[in-house]
């Protein structure tokens, strides 16, 4: 730990570090939580681990923090091997899912706690704590106790406390999941702004895909102790590497289709494949709701791409419309203005935008899945 500096801009100047995890494994009895995970976070980068509960994302974070020991593998931070270091010596700031402020200390004392442990003089300590509180916009709450401030404010203090010690790495373990939707979105943006401002290498763990896509430089989608895809948010969303990623991030229609050559034929329409090497045969094509557009159908035909609107879900600027195609149902995401013209019972014709689609093994019964 270098001696604390008085201005946060110096933190960025100090140089962010690279975090490298190689072959990390962890078991809990017979359960494999992490299965040879490899992950490198570039200096100053914010990487989010996204996945369903039990996929190993929190375990990864806890191993990095030193709160648990890895069964195998190596962790290096800025080139130094920290695999066997205890948590107290790892120089990482962590924000937890549960409220973790020390209840017997004021907001300011909480933020200054890590500096006190490092024997920083009281004047410098107070100054640094106030700077951190200024960073998270809570200077006015400095003398309050944790139970006197709101949940969102508590998490901001926790962030200030984690950053006050000028850690090499910032770890965020679902810090927003206990908050209500509006505060969550605001705090999410604030975390990102502060992270960019401080320029600290950050690992963020969440099960909320919207959060992951909004905040990250890169998103790692995890399943069963492995990273399925590690890529920028736009790529994870528009070019998912595996069917699991396609279905976990965003919604997908599962439509039966047939692969021939480099295209897949879905209800009479040829769509390009993400993976051109897919063997020919029946498959399930994963089509995003926003790739489906609807138009009022007055022809009265009953082709493979005409159907009846059965429901419409208002989401604000957009609406999600469910269309019955006879044998299956399909979801389409339209602007609310467009959806307003298509009440339940309307006959519609569908167009599927020819984006490259991902396919998985054919489902037994053909049906759409949200």
């Amino acid at each position, binding site marked *: 730990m270098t001696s604390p500096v008085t201005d946060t801009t110096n933190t960025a100047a100090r140089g962010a570090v690279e975090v490298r995890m190689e072959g990390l494994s962890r078991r809990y009895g017979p359960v494999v939580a992490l299965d040879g995970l490899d992950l490198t976070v570039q200096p100053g980068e914010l990487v989010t681990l996204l996945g369903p509960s039990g996929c190993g994302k929190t375990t990864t974070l806890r191993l990095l923090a030193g709160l648990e020991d890895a069964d195998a593998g190596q962790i290096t931070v800025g080139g130094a091997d920290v695999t066997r270091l205890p*948590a107290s010596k790892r120089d990482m700031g962590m924000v937890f899912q549960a409220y973790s402020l020390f209840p017997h200390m004021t907001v300011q004392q909480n933020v200054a706690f890590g500096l006190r442990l490092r024997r920083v003089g009281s004047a410098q300590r107070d100054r640094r704590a106030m700077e951190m509180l200024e960073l998270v916009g809570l200077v006015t709450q400095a003398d309050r106790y944790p139970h006197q401030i709101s949940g969102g404010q508590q998490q901001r203090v926790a962030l200030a406390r984690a950053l006050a010690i000028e850690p090499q790495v910032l770890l965020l373990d679902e810090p927003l999941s206990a908050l209500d939707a*509006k505060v969550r979105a605001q705090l999410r943006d604030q975390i990102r702004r502060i992270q960019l401002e401080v320029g600290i290498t950050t690992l963020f763990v969440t099960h909320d895909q919207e959060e992951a896509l909004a905040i990250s430089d890169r998103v790692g989608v995890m399943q069963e102790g492995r990273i399925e895809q590690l890529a920028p948010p736009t790529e994870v969303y528009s070019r998912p590497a595996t069917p699991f990623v396609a279905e976990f991030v965003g919604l997908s229609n599962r439509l039966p289709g047939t692969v021939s050559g480099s295209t897949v034929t879905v209800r009479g329409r040829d769509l390009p494949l993400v993976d051109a090497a897919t063997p020919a045969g029946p498959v399930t094509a994963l089509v995003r709701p926003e790739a489906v557009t609807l138009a009022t159908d007055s022809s009265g035909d009953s082709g493979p791409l005409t159907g009846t609107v059965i429901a419409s879900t208002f989401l604000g600027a957009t609406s999600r419309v469910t269309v019955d195609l006879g044998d299956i149902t399909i979801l389409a995401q339209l602007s609310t203005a467009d959806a307003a013209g298509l009440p339940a019972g309307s006959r519609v014709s569908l167009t599927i935008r020819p984006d490259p689609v991902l396919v998985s093994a054919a489902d037994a019964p053909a049906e759409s899945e949200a």
Partner: protein
Amino acid sequence: MAAVTSVGEAPLAAPARPPRGMQAGRRRRLNAFRYVVFTFFTLFFLLPLLALLRFSLEGNTLGTWSIAAWKEIASYPGPPPLLSAVEITLELAVLTSVVTLVLLVPTMIWIRLRVQWISRAFEFLCLLPLTIPAIVLVVGLAPVYNKIRHFELSALMLFWAYVILALPYAYRALAAGLNAIDVKTLSEAARSLGAHWFTVMFRVIAPNMRQAILNALLLSAALALGEFTIAYTLLYVNLQVEMYSISRNTPNASVIFSTSLAALVFAFLLLLIISYAGRRRRRGMR
């Protein structure tokens, strides 16, 4: 460094309240109930004490007043004199509660943090003294204390036995305190900030158990102040034993009443002082 504007969020909102009229009626009924309960229990506890006081002030003939009984207690020649019995009992109370806490607080936090799997066994061990009557305990302790007696140690040695007796009560109080805080998250937060286990225990967890520690202190002190069986059967004299011998060696019935009252009031006042001191410090906590 640009300060980030505060996100507009209100502090935790007060819970929604029911309509005013209904609430007022309910509050009145609740208050009435409170007063009835309070009055009942005040009378229940105070009447016997007042009766004790009246009888302790009984003169030679029925219906007259005298403080002779109180004078007799105060001037009891012993051995040992009354004051030294008071002193021994106070010292026992302090020693018992301090030793109990020093043993239990770090052990319990440590078990919660690091060796959770033995917590059941530890709880069983701590609660065991509850199931053993004091008189049975004495049978086991007597040979040990007979050995100690060779070294002519004072009645203070009773604290060993008292710590064992106090374990279940102190354990329960401390366990309640530990359960009320998120030990795991707090300790992990402290460790990630650079705290060692010792710091986690004494600067993060223990301060958040203040009330529980105070309760444990109160209970073990109360136990030491009121203990009679073990002291008497092991032939040590603490305040309770002294009171017993005073009342047995006097022809004056009022003395019996005054000693009982004195013993009660003594313990009550001490406990009141301890709990008041604890609460006042809490309010002044920064």
